[in-house]
């Protein structure tokens, strides 16, 4: 009976991993794929826990700690670079143009830092002019959203 429950747990994890794999393939944005990776890490941790209880293998426990430590890195990395990625892919700017624009904006924002109160919203990205980036991002993202909804039907 106890073994049945443990087998059911493993089957649930297997179903979860299958569904997550479908989401990982479908997208439609890289953020959805990052979410799928997060759930995958959680499911793998669960599988290791069930296995260690079933076969009483406490030598598997460090594996869970390692997964808990490193599971968030992938999605954080994707989140860090996704906005620039969508901007480059939107066809608005080539990478060189985007770099030149960034530098121009950095110089501009450095020169009028005194009279512009940025607040603490974008304190970590003072070398980007926040609102311009967001405007372009919103245009590109709306097109991406339209495309995605058409694909999903």
């Amino acid at each position, binding site marked *: 009976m106890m073994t049945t429950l*443990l087998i059911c747990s493993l089957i*649930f994890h297997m179903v*979860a991993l299958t569904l997550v794999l479908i989401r990982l393939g479908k997208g439609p*944005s890289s*953020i959805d794929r990052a979410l799928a990776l997060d759930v995958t890490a959680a499911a793998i941790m669960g599988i290791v826990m069930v296995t260690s209880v079933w076969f009483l293998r*406490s030598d598997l426990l460090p594996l869970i700690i390692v997964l808990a430590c490193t599971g*968030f890195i992938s999605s954080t990395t994707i989140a860090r670079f996704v906005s620039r990625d969508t901007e480059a892919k939107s066809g608005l700017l080539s990478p060189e143009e985007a770099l030149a624009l960034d530098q121009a904006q950095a110089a501009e924002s450095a020169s009028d830092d005194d009279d512009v109160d940025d607040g603490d*919203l974008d304190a970590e990205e003072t070398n980007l002019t926040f*609102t311009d980036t967001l405007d372009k991002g919103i245009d590109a993202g709306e097109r*991406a959203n339209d495309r995605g909804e058409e694909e999903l039907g």
Partner: protein
Amino acid sequence: MNAVLVWIGVALLFLGSLVTALSALGLLHFRSVYARMHVSAKPQSFGILLMSIGMACALQTAKGIAVAVLVVALQYLTVPISSHMLGRAAFRAGMEAKTVTDEYSDDIRHIREQADPSAAM
């Protein structure tokens, strides 16, 4: 080994895996990024919490309990970070949040008016 505790532990492991499976179903079903984000945080926090308690109850060793506490602590430290980063990236990439209140857009408008009063609407 306390048999009742082992049963409770196995039941908790079962419940945790059920949470994981249901949230994977939700990840496939929901249509907006933010709804998917909401449902994908559940197995990482709640599911891992249930399964860690279950593992500690079932193993009943000092090592098992220490690992369970450490794993729950690590998950509850890192999951909010990655969720926050993903939500922020989604909003700034232009994914529309169809919410009742939208304070972030209000803040952006406020900054824009302060930066360029002539363009204020």
